[in-house]
Each structure stands twice: as C-alpha cells, then as structure tokens.
C-alpha cells in the first residue's frame, strides 16, 4: 500500500487527498491491534486474578512477582524482548501479533488488579452460600462470583481500553504499519512532517474520545447488580 506511495504535495488540498486515506488505513490497523491486545489482556488478566486467589503460595508468589515486574518495566522493552527473542526459539510471529501480545501482556497486569478488586468486592455471603450448596470451585467462580464482579469493574476496564488505544503507536517501532508509522513514512518521503503528524494526532484524539464515549454509554446501560444467567 505504502510501497508505491505517490503523493502530490503541490498544494495542501491535493496532499490531504492522498494523505487521509493512507492515515485512515493506518487507523484501522491501530484499532485492530488495540482490540486484539485488549482481548488478550482481559482473558489473561482474569486468569491471573483467579490464580492469585488460590490458597497455594507456590502459585501466588510467582504470579505476584510477574505482575509487579511487568507492571514496572516499559512496554517498549517488553515489545523488543518478544520481537527479537521469540524468533530465536523458533516462534516466528507477524509483527502485528507480537505487538498486540506485548500490549496484552502488559495490560493483563492492570486488568488482573481490576478483576481482583471486583472479586474482592463480592459479598462474603455469596462465597459461603456457594460453599453451603456444595458448588465446585469452577462453578463458584463461573456462575456466582465472576458474573457479579464484572459489572462493577466495567468502568475501570473501559478506561484501560482507551489506555491501550494510546499505546498502539509504539508498534511503529517494530515496523507495524499503524497510523503513526504511516505518518512518519509520509513525512520521510515528502519532508513535510507537520501535516501528517498533526492529522494523526487529531485522528487519535477523535478515536479515543469516541471510545471513551462508548465506555460511558455502556456504563450507564449495564446492570449494577450482576449479569443474570439462566
């Protein structure tokens, strides 16, 4: 797409005509990476949160250390780590997948804390009732605890989605053609950085505002007490 880039920079209008479709394609990649990263973060975060509540120190300690370590180190280095180290062990993934995975792993440490707070907020009586009914651990979590924990943490999880969206430009460092990368490539070719970068920033602002709005709407619609299962 960007290989045979031929932008007419004679006037601002013609430049914009060529530039906007390119940036929008980049924006699609940005959103796709954010979504994939978000799904990974949600699933892994829930797993980490549940594992951390197990009564075995041999499981909870390494997880606590992992969460603390990943949370306190830069995403950029984690990204490079996955991108350059995994292929050495025969795991060759597309840059897009590696990038989304790195974002997902870093954010899973945030989501796990959010889930943990949500699970802690479920009333003790619910746990005791599940135990009294002789429900297994998996049913206690799956049917009783998690459906009540999730609605409470939706606002916090939504904010993390917006956060992930703002992290995706980092993927440009491992050659993913997302919006910022497209903008800098256009800048490198045409020697005009202001317009592409300003436009990219503007599109980013619109996108994050849009997602923040959706999160706010979702927050109002969701039941406050819990998801009702059959």
């Amino acid at each position, binding site marked *: 797409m960007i290989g045979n880039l031929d932008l007419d920079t004679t006037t601002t209008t013609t430049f914009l005509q060529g530039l906007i479709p390119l940036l929008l394609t980049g924006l699609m990649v940005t959103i796709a990476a954010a979504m994939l990263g978000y799904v990974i973060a949600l699933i892994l975060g829930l797993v980490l949160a549940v594992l951390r509540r197990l009564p075995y120190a041999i499981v909870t300690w390494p997880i606590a250390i992992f969460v603390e*370590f990943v949370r*306190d*180190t*830069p*995403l*950029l*280095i*984690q990204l*490079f*780590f996955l991108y*350059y*180290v995994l292929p*050495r062990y025969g795991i060759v993934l597309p840059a897009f997948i590696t990038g989304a995975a790195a974002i997902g792993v870093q954010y899973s440490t945030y989501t796990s804390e959010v889930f943990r707070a949500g699970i802690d907020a479920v009333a003790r009586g619910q746990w005791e009732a599940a135990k009294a009914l002789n429900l297994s651990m998996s049913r206690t979590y799956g049917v009783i605890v998690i459906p009540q924990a999730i609605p409470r943490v939706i606002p916090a999880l939504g904010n993390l989605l917006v956060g992930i*969206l*703002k*992290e*995706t*430009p*980092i993927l*440009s*460092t491992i050659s993913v053609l997302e919006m*910022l990368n497209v*903008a*800098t490539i256009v*800048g490198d070719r045409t020697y*005009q*950085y*202001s317009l592409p*970068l*300003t436009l*990219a*920033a503007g599109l*980013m*602002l619109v996108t*994050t*505002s849009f997602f923040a709005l959706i999160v706010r709407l979702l927050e109002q619609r969701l039941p406050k007490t819990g998801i009702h299962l059959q």
Partner: protein
Amino acid sequence: MLATLINYLDYLSVGIKATILVFAVSLLFGLCISFLVGLIRFARIPILYQICFLYVGIFRGTSLLIQLFWIYFSLPMFGISISSFAAGCLGLALNNGAYGSEIVRGALSSVSKQQFEAATALNFSVGHTLRRIILPQALPEMIPPFGNLSIMLLKDTALVSMINIADITFRAQQLRTRTFDSLGVYAVTLVVYFVLALAIVAAVRLVEHYIRPEKRRTGFLSALIGDQQS
C-alpha cells in the same frame, strides 16, 4: 556468563544516567505544570480555564509517542528548533502534567467546602488559605497517585530513545545490534528498569513518611519496607 551481563550493565550505564536525567527534569516540570493547571482548573479562572481544559484534553487524548514526534519533527517546520533532549523532556513533562493536573484537581476537590468557608470567614487571603488550610489537607491525598504517575513517567522515558536520546533503551538497541544476544541484553535492561522503579517506590514511601503524620512509622527502614495494608 555473569561477566557478560556485567559488561552489558557497564555499557548501559551511560544510558542509565541519561534516563535518570530525563526522568528528573520531566518530573520537576511535570509537577510544576500539574499544580499550575490543577489550581487553575479547580479555581475555574475564566479563559485560562478553557485553555487548560483544551491542553489536558489533547495531551490525555493522544498518545505520548505522537506527541514526542510532533514536538521533535514538526516544531522545526514552524522555525522552532530544539534539541532532542529538550524535545523529550518537553513532551514527557507536558504529558505527565496533563495527568498530574487531574490528580491535583481531584485532591483539592476532596477537601470539604466548609474548610474554604471557614477560611473566608476568618478573612484569610487566597494564598494563605491555600498554603495553610487546603494544601496541608490535599497534599497527603496526592502522594500515592503521584507515585504511580512517577512510575508511569519512568516507563515512558523509554520512548525518548525514538527521538535519538541515548537513554537505556537506545543503548540496549545498540548493544543488541552489536552482540546479537537479544535475550541477555533485554533481560538486563528490564531488570535495570525494574530496579529504578523500585527505587521510585522507596522514594515515594519516604516522602509519604514525612508528609502523612498518621502513616509515620517508627524508623527509617520500616518506612522503606512499609506494610501490606497501607
């Protein structure tokens, strides 16, 4: 094996100094911006309030990497040429200040209204009210979120390597292309960042020790280690 890792650490040491410098300068300016903008937004000073609202919206709504690129590549197009170090610190400080101002505003809002009314009734000047009544109550509230924000800032400093500041990340990249030992290099780099983050956590605990009297612990060491409940 160990000797190699120590060699890496030696090579990275130049970068460590640069990272700490960038971190300290951006933290300082970021804090100044936080308090300035936070106070303006809290006091709802006309015109300035709108400007700050716009500033916070833009810097919280777009991603840091785009902001850094914009400052570094786009400002020279308007005739403002700054060094990469200045551009990096400016970007980080503006980004950090936008988030920090929300912390300041939140903490100021959490002080009860009667405190302001009592100060007005006693004919205190604005500066006096702020210095003697409001800030002593609001400051302790700000410490934990500012601690988190400082760790975010440390992680974000990794991005300045993209605009050619020879920080830890930049040196790590050089080292990787030199040695091809991506696993060792990035593992050392991650540990370095983690240790720096732990140092920040310890520093925040110390500040808390002096600012929050109710949290003051018996000794210097116990202040550093802290307890799980706080």
